[in-house]
């Protein structure tokens, strides 16, 4: 670690100097020794002129803008916002343009894409700029509304009617990424990157106190910034990437209830003759985190028959937490049968999570038709946390100070070794067979212990057989099938893969130049027969898609797909209140189809309208029967060479058999124009 940072810094600082040397160095110079040609340089060493016309337009692209109307949402508006969330208003629906500098001054080309701006639930912006051999710059920004308010997810008072969902939120998450690669195409490429991920908004959560929990407002704000820089050495026979980075994180969530109101929570039944309530609350989280990480990658063409691969990845995150909470009301401490009216709670905590990953592998080609791929992976994650808290419970005649110290740790060591042998039986048939062994251990502990589950250890042992066949009898047909069967001697969780078989088959067939079909089949069968587990899981999915474009789609084309899936899961558990054996049965049998039909409508000499119609539907039965329809139609009408008018209709219909109150349906109509240049 200590060495990586100085090497990296020196490498980045040296980059411009080396680059200048490189530019002025003849091809035989040592710096280019590893980049030596793989074929004789043309006798005529004069650089070929680029045949790109110099008089291309400096600006090309298009912009779509218009207005969207949404009819009234019939049914649950909250469910609509949780799933679709599109609204009315003027919109910048999309913009894509390219700037070209024919003189290649600051840039060769800049590509810009932006979609769905104007209070839409997801907006994005992307920019790529480059100047050959000097830099490549990418910027990406996304703003996604994250709304969830579904009583069926968490409504503890459902027996009393549909009321406030206690785990809901109305937030926006924003992501930005800036990446700069210097000297692309060179043997030595420094790069820098910055990522920012933030979320903010409001929600409803619960303040949990002994004997009751109180729905309260919740303010959320978190932000992660990631900085990284590195250098790539790309030589003819060897590549290495060294990267150093770090993150900063903050989370300032606050949960509150203003004084002056009484919140009776989810429990209206008096406890020992007293009704519990919350009259004020302020709980705030002050969480600050940092992490550092290092990355070293290499690939090497060691010989014509041998390629080597390796990765070393290390990260260490840590967090510091200051949590404070002040609550008043008629509150209750269950294990001491104590009623109190005020609580002051302070907690300081810290956690560290070092995580090391290493991987090595090789592809060996001993014979023309045989390839052997051997890989090994280890992943070690150890986390340790500690928390110290003090609280003061007070009331009439009561002043009860309490302190606690807790320490926690989790650790997992995962290892995997795999060998695959590929055999090209013919130029059209490739067979693969392999074996994977997975082993590891894990532990989870909190001290001092409380209850029965304070320290646990688990082991992972799994033998997996692998097989695959790829058959391409002609350019029109390709069939791929792969199968995997695993047998475990230990897993971490009851629902983990244990004794399983996984099969996937895929076929693609181009029946004619205009008609192509593809089919896909997957099945996963998992079974854990151990006493106390008894898990059975079977899932399969079959899909078929078709693309038909007669005469190259001159008049019309069609693209459609249909999928059917079935999932069955059976596992037992003891109901905690009476320790009676129960079964958790999950069934999901669904049908999904998508279709898109494009028609170039009959037209005059100047106007050639185009109609697109299609959409998707999803219908399921089983544990949560639901349906979701999204038909659409869009009409394009070119008005001039650079101007198109379009109008689009979409329908969203969602229904649930068990939770009828969450269904909704609405129509959206958008109309606008596209300007092109």
């Amino acid at each position, binding site marked *: 670690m200590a060495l990586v940072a100085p090497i990296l810094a020196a490498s980045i600082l040296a980059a411009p100097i080396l680059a200048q040397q490189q530019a002025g160095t003849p091809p035989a110079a040592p710096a280019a020794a590893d*980049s030596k040609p*793989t*074929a004789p*340089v043309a006798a005529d060493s004069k650089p070929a002129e*680029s*045949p790109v016309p110099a008089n291309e337009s400096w600006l090309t692209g298009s912009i779509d803008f218009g207005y969207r109307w949404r009819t009234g949402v019939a049914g649950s508006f909250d469910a609509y916002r*949780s799933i679709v969330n599109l609204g009315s208003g003027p919109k910048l629906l999309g913009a*894509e343009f390219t700037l070209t500098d024919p003189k290649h001054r600051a840039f060769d080309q800049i590509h810009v894409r932006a979609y769905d701006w104007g209070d839409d639930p*997801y907006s994005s912006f*992307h920019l*790529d700029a480059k100047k050959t051999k000097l830099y490549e710059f990418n910027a990406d920004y996304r703003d996604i509304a994250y709304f969830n308010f579904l009583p069926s997810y968490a*409504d*503890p008072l459902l027996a009393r009617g549909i009321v406030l969902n206690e785990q809901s939120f109305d937030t926006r998450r924003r*992501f930005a990424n800036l990446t700069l690669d210097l000297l692309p*195409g060179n043997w030595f490429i420094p790069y820098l990157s910055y*990522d920012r991920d933030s*979320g903010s908004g409001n929600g409803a959560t*619960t303040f*949990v106190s002994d004997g009751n929990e109180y729905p309260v407002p919740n303010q959320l704000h978190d932000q992660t910034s*990631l900085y990284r820089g590195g250098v790539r050495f790309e030589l003819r026979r*060897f590549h290495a*990437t060294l990267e150093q980075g770090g993150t900063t994180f903050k989370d300032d969530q606050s949960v509150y209830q203003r004084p002056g109101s009484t919140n009776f929570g989810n429990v209206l039944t008096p406890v020992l003759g007293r009704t519990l309530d919350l009259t004020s609350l302020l709980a705030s989280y002050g*969480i600050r985190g940092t992490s550092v990480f*290092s990355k070293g990658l290499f690939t090497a*063409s060691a010989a014509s028959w041998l390629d080597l*691969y390796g*990765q070393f990845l*290390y990260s260490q*995150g840590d*967090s510091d937490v200051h949590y404070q909470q002040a609550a008043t009301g008629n509150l209750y401490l269950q294990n001491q049968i104590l009623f109190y009216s005020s609580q002051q709670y302070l*907690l300081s905590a810290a956690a560290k999570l070092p995580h090391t990953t290493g991987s*090595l*592998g090789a*592809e060996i080609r001993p014979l023309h038709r045989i390839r052997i791929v051997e890989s090994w992976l280890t992943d070690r994650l150890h*986390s340790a*946390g500690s*928390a110290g808290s003090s609280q003061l419970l007070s009331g009439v005649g009561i002043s009860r100070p309490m302190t606690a110290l*807790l320490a926690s740790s989790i650790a997992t060591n995962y290892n995997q070794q795999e060998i*695959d042998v590929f055999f090209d039986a013919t*130029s059209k048939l*490739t067979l693969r067979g392999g074996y994977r062994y997975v082993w590891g251990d894990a532990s*989870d502990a909190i001290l001092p212990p409380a209850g029965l589950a304070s320290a646990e250890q*688990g082991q992972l042992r799994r033998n997996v057989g692998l097989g*695959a066949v790829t058959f*391409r009898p002609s350019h029109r047909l390709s069939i*791929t099938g792969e199968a995997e069967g695993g047998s475990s001697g230990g897993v*971490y*969780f*009851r629902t983990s893969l244990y004794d399983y078989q996984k099969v996937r088959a895929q076929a693609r067939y181009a029946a004619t130049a205009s008609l192509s079909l593809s089919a*896909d089949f997957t099945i996963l069968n998992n079974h854990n027969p151990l*006493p106390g587990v008894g898990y059975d899981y079977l899932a399969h999915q079959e899909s078929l*898609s078709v693309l038909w474009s007669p005469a190259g789609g001159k008049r019309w084309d069609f693209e459609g*797909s249909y999928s059917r899936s079935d999932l069955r899961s059976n*596992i037992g*558990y003891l109901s905690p*209140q009476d320790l009676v054996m129960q079964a958790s049965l*999950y069934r999901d049998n*669904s049908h999904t189809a998508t279709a898109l039909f494009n028609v170039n409508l009959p037209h005059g000499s100047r106007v050639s309208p185009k109609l697109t119609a299609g959409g998707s539907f999803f219908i399921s039965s089983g544990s*949560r029967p639901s349906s*979701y329809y999204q038909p659409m139609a869009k009409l394009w009408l070119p008005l001039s060479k650079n101007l198109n008018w379009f109008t689009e209709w979409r329908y969203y219909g969602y229904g649930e058999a068990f939770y009828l109150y969450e269904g909704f349906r609405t129509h959206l109509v958008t109309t606008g124009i596209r300007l092109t240049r």
Partner: protein
Amino acid sequence: MRNIESIWLVLLISSAAAGQTATSPNASPYAGSEACGACHEDISNAFAKSPHHLVDLDKKRGWQGRACESCHGPAQKHTESVSADDIRNPAKLTAAAADQICLGCHLNQPTNVGRLQSSHAKDQVSCTACHKVHANGPSGMVMRKASAINEQCRSCHVSAWAQFQKPFHHRLPEGVMSCVDCHNPHGSIRPAMTQIFAANEPGCFQCHGDKRGPFTFEHAPVRFESCATCHEPHGSANPRMLVRQVVRLLCLECHASLPTVKVSRVLGVVPPAFHDLRSPRFQNCTVCHQKIHGSHVDRNLLR
């Protein structure tokens, strides 16, 4: 251990030496890119705008004026006979053989460091299945726009695309996310070729930074397996893309209250609490255990 290190060192040194002594290919008759463009005009024009055109211009790469032949092999005979039999067509080679041509230049780039774990490579999906070697445009040689990437992936992964049509899904059909936001098509050391964040953390944390921790009190499945233990990452009929229709069953399948922990040796089985699940108050565990991804404050993930 020391022996293994020594073996790797010797292997690396010998491979570097082998690299130094590698000889140039046979001086087969080359025709030059201009000769190719005389017949294959459309391809030649498109190629001229492609990033690969650099191969034609850059002396260092050794294919100056012969970029076409860097992949298709010597073409002099083909120009004379005009026979497809006299030229190498990577599209007609096995995927592995075609990839070897690409990897001749591109192996030694960080993009391919996860290639051994790539199911694309294992299933003979060649580079040209996604990359258009001759073409150019705002997308370069591969799709860049999210909706175009998704369209390309779904042409093979029909079943995966169907899952995105379920009501609760990541925003791929809407075009604000793409498959490559979560998956690395070139391969990754993580399961299902998922992306990696900050050196070796799950790619999910790229967007869900608030779930990243480290937490004082972790929820073990998040670290020991993955988010997919509880969530269907593509899409689900269940709210919050959960793998079960109601929260309590999802929790109880692990926290099964069974006293057989020493037999099955799985984690989280012993009774964490004795709530009466017949009460609506206890039927959605996350109403109280709201910090289910891990808590900075409470060992029971209550706040």
